[in-house]
């Protein structure tokens, strides 16, 4: 499937719009933008992905907890962050972000950063939170699909409750959640592009930067499409490798009788 997609992006789009992805002049100019942008995207993914997994896991756990102090706030969190568009979250996070952090902490730890960079960082965290709400639902489904008898059996053996969690429930939850998590990671990678809307330095933003100077410097206008095609292929490869990677991981850990949840 992805082969068909890549083929279309590589062959059909250039044919329609009459550009070549092999032009050396194009790459001479675009490479610098592309590399900076790609590293920016990697940076934001590296920032948001671990954070969203941790948050999502904790929230998903809280949502199956019997204790309301955990369950109710987690439900509210999930419903709010799933219900709001990531773009809105990002824009408001970049506007409010710095006032949500107490001034002393700002002065002490972030003194070296420009205010704008901090705002983009907080917007990235907002994206992570949006994704974590979806991941919380994945983990919740994972927790709920571990039968109650497993917990009982662990208790009957004399395992402490944290041991039962660690050795019986969590291994099953993770195995069940891996493929849907891979899909959610792909969504997260795509969502980092939203940061281009608020002065984040990543692939889409850098590519747009090039287009800003395109007409002024007399370069062919169809390069616009070449640029977007390259960006599209990059995202296609990124999202495909992360979903594929987690699917392979699941296959590696696959145990008979434990089928991945579909959410």
């Amino acid at each position, binding site marked *: *499937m*992805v082969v*068909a*997609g890549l*083929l*279309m*992006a590589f062959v059909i789009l250039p044919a329609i719009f009459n550009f070549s992805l092999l032009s050396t002049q194009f790459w001479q100019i675009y490479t610098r933008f592309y590399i900076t942008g790609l590293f920016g995207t990697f940076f934001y993914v590296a920032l948001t992905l671990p954070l969203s997994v941790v948050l999502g896991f904790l929230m998903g756990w809280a949502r199956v907890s019997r*204790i*309301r*102090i*955990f*369950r*109710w*706030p987690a439900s*509210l969190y999930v*419903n*709010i962050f*799933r*219900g*709001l*568009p*990531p*773009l*809105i979250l990002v*824009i*408001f996070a970049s*506007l*409010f972000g710095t*006032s*949500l952090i107490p001034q002393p902490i700002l002065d002490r730890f972030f003194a070296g950063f420009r205010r704008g960079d901090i705002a983009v960082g907080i917007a990235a965290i907002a994206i992570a939170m949006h994704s974590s709400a*979806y991941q919380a*639902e994945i983990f919740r489904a994972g927790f709920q699909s571990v039968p109650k008898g497993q917990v009982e059996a662990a208790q009957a053996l004399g395992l402490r409750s944290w041991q039962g969690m660690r050795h019986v429930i969590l291994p099953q939850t993770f195995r069940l959640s891996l493929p*849907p998590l891979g*899909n*959610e990671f*792909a*969504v997260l990678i*795509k*969502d980092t*592009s*939203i940061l*281009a*809307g608020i002065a984040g330095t990543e692939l*889409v933003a850098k590519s*747009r930067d090039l*287009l800003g100077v395109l007409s002024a410097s007399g370069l062919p*206008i*169809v390069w*616009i*499409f070449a640029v*977007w095609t390259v*960006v*599209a292929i990059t*995202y*296609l490869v990124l*999202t*495909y490798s992360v*979903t594929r990677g987690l699917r392979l991981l699941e296959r590696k850990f696959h145990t008979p009788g434990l089928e991945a949840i*579909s*959410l």
Partner: protein
Amino acid sequence: MADLRKFLRERWRYIDAMLAVAVIVGSLAYIYDLLVGSRGLDVAYITRNYGLYVHAVLTNVYATTIAFLVGMAIGFSVGWLRTARTMPLAKFVLSLRAERRARSEDREVIKADSGFLIFFSLLWYGAKYVVRRIGDGFVEIIRGTPLYVQILFASSFFIVFLREYATEGLLIGIITLAINTGGYQAEIFRAGLQTVHSGQIEAARAIGFSRLRAMRYVILPQALRLIIPPLTNEYIGLFKASTFLFVLGVQTEISYIALHEGYAGDVFEIFAMVTAIFLAITVTLSFVVQSLERRFRIPGLGIEAVRKPRGVKMPAPVA
């Protein structure tokens, strides 16, 4: 001490609930205090402007609905196309060879039109194969790339080739959203149609239903149950995605934010309003999905199988 423990145990349910509410209210109040603090909530601003924001969100609803319906046509066609069964190419060539061998024992006369036959069936299968692969590629590109990039691509397209329409942000936006949701809906339709077991069609035909009636009375009732909840989820997703219209210069809530941010200092009020309007729509719709699922649930017919949030990939179709 023992009394306290007993008291806590007996009243734990209530204490727990009260603490939970306290945590929620407390954290919301803390955020409110940080953002609004001593300046106080500008109620006058809200009463003066909420109509503007409701109107802006209604623009989103309008764009979403049109794009969704157009996308449904695209999605159904592409999804249905992708359920079409094609033989793997290698297997097809093998069967052709076997056929030729069988024919070669016959008289020479057939040989002439057998080449003709092979040519046309090859063409037919080839066309089917190519069309299906194009469907695959379309879905993969739409789902594998950010909507932002798709919108920028579309606006570039209009700027270069259709200059006179390049300022029609809403039009460009609706077209892009329609194509985008078409890709996502294709997966929903494909999964829905494929999940209805082929045995069901056979069973319906076996008791004397025509193909059309089997579709009407057996396949559709099952497929619709499977498809409606993920379609509603897709509508919610598309509605959230429609905020990107502002990139194209459509007057939506976000452009007002940009407008007001500079001098008004009422960003929190805007945030509160936009959040309230959006949550009202999305949470209501998700509630509708849940109750739909409960209402139409048939034991043994897995609705979960196709209930996917936006952007989730499904297993590849079985060739």
